[in-house]
């Protein structure tokens, strides 16, 4: 028995080392950092223990801006992308011809590099005195614009960010919902149809409750993912997100840590912990809500 314990330990050892150094220790350390006041990277010393870092972050206008941006992004992209994915997944179940072609096409954004394709979106949405840009050309045809979506007004920049985020997250949601819909037994719908129920009624009263665990899973992961948005914003607006007024919470953390104005691991840690607390709260609310509305068979 003792030998087998040693053997198991040896099998686990590599994973344990990696986890201890790069996950468990950092987790403890980030808490410590966040309470060390006046920490200096160069001297590796600090002047006191307390709430100052949190206080500083919460009163930093850049943090407030990042908080507002992130909340707007979350509140728009999560419902829109989940609803739209549901619509598309449902449409996919109604066709047989070309279905796998559509599924393949819809999945493409999942395997693309966020930074690289974001640059294409930037080109499409940008307008300059020399070049109108594709989206502005379309808008011109119906008499709108011109609007510079990349360096123009706030709502325009927020629109592109939301649009690109939705474009990026849809493949995952469509895939999950398509496989959920495929596992619904068609006999329920057939029985309801014989009883004279309308398609809409069948969808809301039978199909949707049956796939509600998947929808709920997507809402939870969607919230978490959207709160951690960052790369898409960099792809569209560049790395100076603070000056573009388009920073996100995760972006704020990394700017504090490293980029212009960086070198403040304590502020970064405090901001990261605040972000974690926000995500935790939202997830707990989601879980409590799901108890009432999700039907697990």
């Amino acid at each position: 028995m003792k030998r087998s314990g040693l053997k198991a330990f040896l099998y686990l050892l590599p994973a344990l080392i990696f986890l201890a150094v790069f996950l468990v220790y950092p987790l403890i350390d980030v808490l410590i950092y966040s309470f060390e006041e006046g920490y200096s990277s160069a001297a590796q010393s600090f002047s006191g223990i307390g709430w100052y870092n949190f206080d500083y972050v919460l009163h930093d206008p850049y943090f407030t801006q990042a908080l507002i941006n992130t909340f707007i992004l979350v509140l728009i992209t999560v419902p829109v992308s989940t609803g739209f994915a549901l619509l598309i997944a449902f449409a996919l179940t109604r066709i047989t011809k070309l279905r796998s072609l559509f599924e393949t096409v819809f999945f493409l954004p999942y395997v693309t590099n966020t930074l690289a394709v974001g640059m294409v979106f930037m080109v499409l949405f940008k307008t300059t005195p020399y070049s109108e840009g594709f989206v502005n050309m379309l808008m011109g045809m119906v008499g709108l614009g011109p609007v510079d979506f990349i360096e123009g007004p706030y709502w325009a920049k927020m629109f592109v960010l939301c649009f690109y985020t939705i474009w990026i997250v849809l493949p995952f949601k469509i895939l999950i919902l398509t496989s959920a819909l495929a596992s619904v037994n068609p006999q329920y719908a057939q029985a309801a149809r014989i009883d004279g129920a309308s398609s809409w009624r069948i969808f809301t009263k039978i199909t949707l409750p049956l796939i509600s665990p998947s929808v709920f899973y997507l809402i939870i992961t969607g919230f978490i993912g959207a709160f951690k948005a960052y790369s898409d914003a960099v792809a569209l607006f560049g790395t100076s997100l603070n000056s573009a007024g388009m920073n996100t919470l995760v972006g704020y953390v990394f700017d504090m840590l490293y980029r212009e104005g960086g070198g403040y691991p304590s502020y970064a840690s405090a901001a990261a912990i605040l972000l974690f607390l926000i995500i935790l709260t939202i997830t707990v609310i989601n879980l409590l809500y799901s108890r009432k509305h999700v039907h697990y068979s």
Partner: protein
Amino acid sequence: MKKHRPFTWLLLIVWALAVLFPFYWMLLTSIKGYAAYNAEYTPQLWTLHPTLENYVLAFTEVDLARYLLNTLFFTVVTTGLMVFVSILAAFAFARLEFKGKNILFTLFLALMMIPNELVIITNFQTITEWNMRNTMIGLILPSVTSIFYIYLLRESFAQVPDSLYYAAKIDGTSDWRFLWKIMVPICRPTVVTVTILKVIECWNLYIWPSLITDDPKYFLVSNGIQQIRESGFGRANIPAMMAAVVVISIPLIVLFLVYRKQIMSGVARGGTKG
């Protein structure tokens, strides 16, 4: 039952176009000449004078080949290490008996919920203290751990019947041999899935490399493309930029088209991007 469904088709076709259009646009722009592109105020949806000069520029003006090689090396080593370490741990959890196994496994699952953003701050400090900034090893080490993949592999390993294990034991097969000669081949679909998911993750990694490298010699493609956007090609040479974007996007799209079934079923089981 046989009805035409115009709205369904319209919806599917419109979104398919919205997905494909950016890919079309990057290809189209990448074969437009610099002068021709800048001369058009209203974007042209077609070009009569395709050129490959942008692709030449992408490999000569900026170090695109190096970014690609770096990313390839990073992806292969990180994925290889991750798969090896995870298989060992998953085997211990699925097959071996030891004290505190359940507690340890629960602890692993709890750690799965820790967002990467929280630990990256200290990892940045650690790697900086170890003088591993701008090194491949500094890029690779913190990217290896993935508890979720250990969990997926364990679930798969646990389904291999006990009788196989005892039969192998009676034949005098060691645990090590059993793991690599019997267990891994039986669970090949899961191992392939985990590998592919990690490859996609590595190829598109941006945040960690952007923190840990500022020397273009060690850039991965994501940082390379960001660098190109901010200072490459002199005056905003959009066609050359798009050529670089095409080159960077192709490997994963090819991988996807080849392993379409595995990737989609793998993501349905274990993907988390969203």
